[in-house]
């Protein structure tokens, strides 16, 4: 074959490929065009509605007035008219009280209309079906966080208190067993995107949120057929929920339990007019509801319906999830028109690079990446660390700042083991643990040292506790007091127990694949070596770790807990949880006073009384040292800060949100302060 023939062949092949690809793309392009037209139409409709609303507002006056931050009782009542007169004033501090509306008024202060606009882009990594109850994946939580609201809310400045949201008033009565909510009027359910299709035209109407939707949520949660076993746990003590009138909803609990507070106040509605209906709009029979809900047609069409600030625009699993502003939102929206989640990029390195290439607006750094990118300054666009200025990271073209999370890690000592039964030994272990050094050397300064399981800065924190300072001499003395001496001069402490000489030797178990833990425990091992204690190290996989917890098959372990705003001591420290199958008190900590207080705490609602109990509990646990408490988690938040290119790329208000909001709230909640640089 000669050259001409070959090139003709290649040319034909290229042409064929070109034509095939061209043909293949045409329907896709058409589809995209029609989607864009849909989107435009929707935007026009939204605009029309907004205009109408504005015209109404202007006609009515007074127009929208930004209110100052939620200082008690000053903000005006918005939206709703409450049936009973409410004693405005000192009661409304967000701390639960009997017989009065204690909710902090709804905060509208952070919103500035002139900052509105733009598309916020970020990563999310778990593609799932979106169902408000049965899907407990993090992506689903994150969607419903902005797509719907609860009866009441935790204010971002003081999340330990409660504020108004869909309910404008709550009255707790009957010794904290009955909650009566007065709902905000005029709140409309979002119209799902499919309502535009002829088959779902029955959805294309305004539906107002009523007490029925809350009752529906409770009924579904309690329906044994609905696949939400862990959620149902929170409602196991509920007696019944009732609809008093369309705007009054009541929940009655069987017993006085503090869990009922956040389970009641945090309840989100579920749209009865969607989930209670079959695909043709006919209602589903009650006995079929539970089973149908698990595989509901609305989920299969990837629908989301809420009453929140954003509504689902597009969801292509593993590609993109886009939320757009809800034009009918009752509350104060975030500043972004659209929030777009990139679901494509999974790998840590790939995510960081996509951030650097400007494809997302904010992201996080692990301690090791923080070291290489910021501390070693491999990325010139991050400002270098400045010891004198903790906010130095905000100056870079790409900004960084520490952000805390509600979790703490610890070294747990198995008290059932004779080695750690003596609290002097446990104290010695704490004295030998160079906490501050490990935080600065292994975690590069990320994380705050903690003394108990209460987050530093919380209203519950007992600040009178004295830390067990790193002091090997003191540790040695405590061990000697407990009878541990190096009698044979082999460098390891020993003690005669039941006639047998026993060396002080134990194994520390920890989860595999965490590089920081390896380094941390090697440092600790060396320190322990100096006082004659021999610590062996053993890593295990997650599944094996679960077995270790269950069988209490350990001498010591490294663990961590996520914590919650509702402080509870029963789960981790009550003696019943040491015996129970799979209980969380895996160290076997038993203390009658702690048992008594933990039960009392679960029955106490008044904040001052709770604080007193928690402080006493902390003091006891600090004295007993079943755990050597280590650090509360801290990560690095990075964001697009400033640059020469398109201005929409750059975020503003991030530092303000870091300064003004509670340091422990989630990044997703900080976003209400954020906007693009005008």
């Amino acid at each position, binding site marked *: 074959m000669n050259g001409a023939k070959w090139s003709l062949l290649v040319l034909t092949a290229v042409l064929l490929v070109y034509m095939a690809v061209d043909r293949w793309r045409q329907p896709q392009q058409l589809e995209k065009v029609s989607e864009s037209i849909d989107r435009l139409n929707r935007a026009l409709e939204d605009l029309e509605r907004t205009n109408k609303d504005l015209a109404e507002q202007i006609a009515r006056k007074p127009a929208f007035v930004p209110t100052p931050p939620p200082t008690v009782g000053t903000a005006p009542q918005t939206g709703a008219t409450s049936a009973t007169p409410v004693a405005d004033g000192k009661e409304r501090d967000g701390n639960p009280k009997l017989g009065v509306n204690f909710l902090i008024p709804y905060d509208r202060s952070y919103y500035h209309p002139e900052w509105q606009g733009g598309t916020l882009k970020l990563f999310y990594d778990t593609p799932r079906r979106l169902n408000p109850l049965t899907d407990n994946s993090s992506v689903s939580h994150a969607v419903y966080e902005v797509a719907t609201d609860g009866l009441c809310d935790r204010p971002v400045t003081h999340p330990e208190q409660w504020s108004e949201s869909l309910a404008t008033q709550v009255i707790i009565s009957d010794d904290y067993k009955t909650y009566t909510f007065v709902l905000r009027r005029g709140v409309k359910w979002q119209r799902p995107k499919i309502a535009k299709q002829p088959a779902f035209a029955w959805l294309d109407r305004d539906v107002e949120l009523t007490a029925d939707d809350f009752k529906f949520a409770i009924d579904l949660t309690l329906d044994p057929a609905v696949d939400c076993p*862990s959620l149902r746990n929170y409602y196991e003590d509920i007696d019944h929920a009732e609809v008093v009138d369309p705007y009054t909803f009541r929940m009655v609990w069987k017993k006085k339990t503090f869990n009922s507070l956040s389970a009641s106040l945090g309840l989100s509605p579920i749209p009865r007019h969607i989930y209670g209906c079959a695909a043709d709009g006919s209602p589903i029979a009650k006995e079929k509801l539970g*089973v149908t809900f698990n595989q509901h047609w609305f989920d299969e069409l990837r629908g989301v319906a809420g009453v929140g600030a954003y509504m689902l625009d597009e969801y292509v*699993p*593993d590609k993109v999830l886009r939320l757009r502003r809800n034009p009918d939102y009752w509350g104060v929206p975030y500043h972004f028109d659209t929030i777009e989640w990139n679901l494509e990029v999974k790998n840590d*390195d790939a995510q960081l690079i996509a951030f650097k290439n400007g494809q997302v607006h904010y992201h996080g750094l692990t301690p090791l990446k923080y070291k290489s990118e910021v501390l070693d300054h491999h990325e*010139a666009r991050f400002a270098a660390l400045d010891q004198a200025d903790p906010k130095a990271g905000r100056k870079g073209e790409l900004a960084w700042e520490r952000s805390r*999370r509600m979790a703490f890690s610890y070294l747990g000592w198995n008290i059932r083991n004779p080695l750690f039964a003596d609290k002097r030994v446990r104290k010695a272990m704490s004295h030998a643990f160079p906490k501050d050094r490990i935080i600065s050397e292994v975690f590069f300064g990320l994380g705050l040292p903690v003394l108990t399981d209460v987050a530093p800065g919380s209203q519950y924190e007992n600040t009178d506790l004295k830390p067990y300072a790193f002091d090997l001499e003191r540790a040695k003395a405590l061990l000697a007091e407990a009878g541990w001496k190096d009698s044979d001069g082999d460098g390891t402490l020993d003690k005669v127990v039941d006639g047998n000489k026993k060396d002080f030797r134990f194994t520390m178990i920890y989860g595999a694949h965490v590089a920081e833990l390896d380094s941390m425990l090697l440092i600790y091992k060396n320190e322990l070596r100096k006082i004659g204690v021999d610590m062996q190290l053993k890593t295990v996989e997650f599944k094996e770790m679960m077995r270790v917890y269950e069988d209490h098959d350990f001498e010591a372990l490294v663990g961590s807990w996520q914590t919650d705003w509702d402080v509870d001591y029963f789960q*981790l420290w009550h003696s019943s949880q040491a015996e129970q199958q799979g209980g969380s008190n895996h160290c076997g900590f038993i203390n009658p006073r702690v048992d008594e207080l933990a039960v009392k705490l679960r029955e106490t609602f008044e904040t001052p009384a709770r604080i007193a109990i928690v402080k006493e509990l902390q003091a006891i646990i600090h004295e007993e040292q079943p755990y050597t408490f280590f650090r509360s988690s801290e990560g690095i938040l990075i964001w697009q800060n400033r640059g020469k290119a398109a201005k929409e790329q750059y975020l503003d208000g991030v530092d303000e949100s870091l300064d003004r909001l509670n340091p422990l709230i989630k990044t997703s909640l900080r976003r209400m302060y954020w906007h693009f640089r005008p």
Partner: protein
Amino acid sequence: MTAYIIRRLLLMIPTFIGILIINFAVLRLQGPTLVDQMQAGVGKGGGEGGPGERKAQGAAKDVENYIDRFRRSGLDLPALINLRGFTGRDEVVARLRDSAGDGPNRERPSTRNGIEKDLWLGGPQLVEPLLAVVADDGLATLHAPAALALSYCAYVTVTARDLARMPAQRLNQIQERNERLRNDRIRYTNTAQGFATVDPEATAKRADLLALFAVPGTHAEFTAARATRWSDSLVRTGFCDFMAKLFTAQLYSESRKDYVFSVIADRWYVTFWLNTISIVIAWAGSVLLGIRSARRSGSLEDRVTTSALFLAWSMPSMFFGTLLLYYFCTDTSGSKAWFPNRGLSSDDALWLPTGQYLLDLLWHAFLPLVVLSYNSFTALSRYMRANLLEQLDADYVRSARAKGCGDDAVVYRHAVGNSLITMITLAGGLLADLFSGALIVELIFSIPGLGWLMLDAAIQQDGPLLMGSTVITVSLLLVGILISDLLYAVVDPRIRGRYA
């Protein structure tokens, strides 16, 4: 030739089933247990948990929901052989005793827990022996745990598909019975002292439970479900359930709440095209490189290529890929990156003219293809080189040269064809290798294909999804082998001759 093809095709069937059986069994050894699933619900709360962080909340008490999930995905059945139909009362008693706090597993709560939960998953086949335990007055200590297990085994899972064809009366009957079973659970503790009933209504509950099963229809229903024939022990297994669902396209992924094939349908072609192209590149490239090396055997160029290839070969693709990503795909303060860092096309690719679109595709696929193929390059080109060298020493080549053929003619017309036989065998197996490579490449370059779907399924312990993806990869592998067999026949006249 037709006979040859038919023979190959028929051989594929047992190979296919064999691979699936082995995969299924291995997966099940590691697969999720009821204990895992219940712990997963407690352990990893939704949200932003770090490594190993657990959320303190009570263990879920509604085991039925978990049992539903297991039944929907066929995980409640034993993997390959089901002997539950032959389980007698005595065996159940023994297992209950094994799960007691004062039993032989006193020191191992996790083992006790496992035995207990395994009994709960027994389904209708265990109803009869459990009922015998509850009915036996001599086994008073075991009544409570047996009644609990009985309530889970006799519990009927209703799926959305059942609803459509189930008469309302039957549905009500099932729901009433499920509710009654739930209410008849006798509360008990299982501590170091063994089982102890703590329920004041224990006697009444037990009586009600026995009354429930005394209804003639109920008893007959469970006796029929017991399946005591030997053939049932092979048919009523997880594997048969899986095969049935596979052929009716009913495989359901619990982690994605979607049918497996609709999840896979969106993704397989990305992986397929990437792999096919990279095989072609790797194969054609290494053949050419092999020929060149063989002809210059021993020269400096040959030695340099060999060393360079081995250097590349020893570099894991995870590392090499990340390196490429950092150096060629990252913007710095001063400059734009040379290559895109994610996906197979730009965000606005749909609106590019087709020519530009193809170039854009090439630009995006370049680095992934490099990472996918560089590894196979070394081995393949060295094989080619060695084969060709061997052929060049053969007698027929010497004859050809003696006949006066030119060097090119000798190599291309005579020697290369013969050395390709081994290369074709290798290419068939290459496909399988590439899938493991695809996983890494897809992860690093963020290409939504089958590779990381499988990775995610493995992390989520989603058996059906993992098996569904395995079916696809196994099919591709078999097709690859078939193609290589066919090419074999094309290249090797001896094979053609045998089937002529």
